[in-house]
């Protein structure tokens, strides 16, 4: 899927109690909650901090998938 350790992704949606949707280069991927829990992420920037329109958006770095 083009995702590996160190890949920079955007978290575009978190369905409550459901999957996390991440995107990169316009590609979107829904990852089930139980799998998403096992992925270590480092937040690089948050959309609200960056002054973007949608406060729920945040950018995160993925650890090993």
């Amino acid at each position: 899927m083009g995702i590996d350790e160190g890949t920079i992704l955007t978290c575009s949606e978190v369905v409550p109690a459901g999957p996390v949707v991440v995107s990169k280069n316009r590609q979107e991927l829904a990852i089930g909650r139980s799998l998403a829990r096992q992925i270590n992420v480092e937040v690089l920037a948050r959309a609200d901090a960056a002054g973007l329109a949608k406060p729920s958006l945040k950018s995160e770095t993925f650890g090993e998938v």
Partner: protein
Amino acid sequence: MVNPVSIGEQKKIVLVGNPNVGKSVYFHRMTGQYVDVSNFPGTTMEFYCGKLGSDFLVDTPGVYGLSGHNEEESLVRDAVLTADIVINVVDAVHLERDLFLTCQLVDTGVPMIIALNMVDELEGRGLAVDTARLEQLLGVPVVATVAVTGHGFDRLSEKLAGARPGQAGELVGQLSAGYMGIPRSEALFILEGDSEVSSRYGLEPGLERDNIYRARRKRAGEIAAAVLKEKRKDLSMASRIGHWLINPLTGIPALFLTLWVIYELVGVFFAQTVVGVTETTIMKGHYEPLVRALLNHVLDLDSPLGFILTGQFGLLTMAVTYLFGLLLPLVGGFFLVLSILEDSGYLPRIATLMDRVMSYIGLNGQAIIPLVLGFGCVTMAAITTRMLASDRERRIAIFLLALSVPCSAQLAFVAAILGSLGPEYMFLYGFFILSVMAGVGTLMDRLLPGYAQPLWLDLPTMRLPRPDNILKKTWTRTFSFLKEAFPIFLGGALLLSLLKVTGLMDAIERMMQPLTTGWLYLPGETAGAFIMGFIRRDFGTAGIMAIPMDPMQKFIALVTLTLFVPCIATTLVIFKERGWREGIVIWLTVLALAFTMGGLLAHVIYYAQGIKPAMTLPLTALFVTTVLVLAVIAGRWRRGVG
């Protein structure tokens, strides 16, 4: 149409690509043969072969790699190993993902060309791709195309003759030197630890898979970064709609709105308005009287032959009326709706939205796709269960499809009967069938070892469905349904008439009385409907339309036949997918559950009617809810999940 590649000997040209990149559109454009095309991964589960001038073109199921992780990957790998030319179809919007497979194909050394599809969508979303640079980095020809419009196909035709092996990754180049005398492609698979290819050469599988994959992933990422340029932000309406559909605040209302539109279109417009014209006015009002009037001149309609041709199960009356007056418009309506859903890219978003709910029945959100497709054709849906990640999920999904999902043909009769009973019955029917699905799924989740695999689903771009593909797909599916159903309907009608004329039907009805009248509280004549249900559930359901029954009885018969064993075609697919032993267990369990639940429902309905006739349906719904809650509690007990 693309011209043939070579003159002289026939070449095998293979279309290879990730799921949902448009391979089947290429196949259709290049060979003129139509193959189902949709906007979700896993539409093509079989190989298709077509003539391309003097050569032949093979369409393959979408795969993410050629490493023999599943049956599809092994088969596509063998298709690549025996190909003269590979056309690697790459989705420009998912370039980085797709390049992993592309790099693997390049590493095999097979002569290839890259058809870069959907370049218009990429540009619409603010990105641009440098095809010349891509060609240079991979060492194979690259053609930018838009398959649905045919853009770039003339250039694809020109460049096909220039297909050539590409530049293998550095690591693969070094490692494959150790396998002198073995073709480069097969040496690669041996290195990657492919046991099947290794055994062909009597060698131990290699141990380099992880290293090769890591290097290939890195190479794919670097190539994507080098050729993709961001021109502007993605402000497309398709992206915005895509996000609204997975956000519960907007997605759940949108889902209900979609279901309501489907109900209005299929349940009201097609099932009542269109069928009112085709069945009542045309077939029963004009066609049947005409047939009877014409035959009356040449034979006695009360004679056995007259009964077979124009009686209760008349070959020329009932069978033809049901097929063309009722099934044709309704099945067409269902396939039309399904085609729109498939092509829009909405199904994977419903899967994302429903992931949590599906986990209660041991599945992840992706299983919603085969379950929804089952409402079109359970046979097709049973094949689509291959897209699910684990054997456990495939088992649960196939069982639920066999038990509780009525196909479009059966739904046509269900809609017609429920339409005459009223909306309260329609609601209770939907609620009961969904409860059975939820209850049985929950218990299977509890009883089968293991857990649901977490969702890992690629979300395709939302697209406005193309009317030409929608109509072509609807017509192809409806026509093939009629072609398959017509002889079975005629044969079934003939069998029923013969049983009736010879008096055997009375004997069967008497034999089945403990089940039909004793347990299900139905008239003895329903035995015929159940017999036909063994051949096709929809034909069995059609059978109950002609039997005089009160609304409760019709409802019970309808539910029992919905939960009945699937048609012969589906049964054969289940045997193929699950093996004959498990297939027999599934078939017998579904049969037992259908009669058990139908009978229990009958007892509850009549018990509730005894308490207060006006409250029969609400009390029944209450009882069903209670049982469902108990099943869910039993399913979650000590599960420690959720």
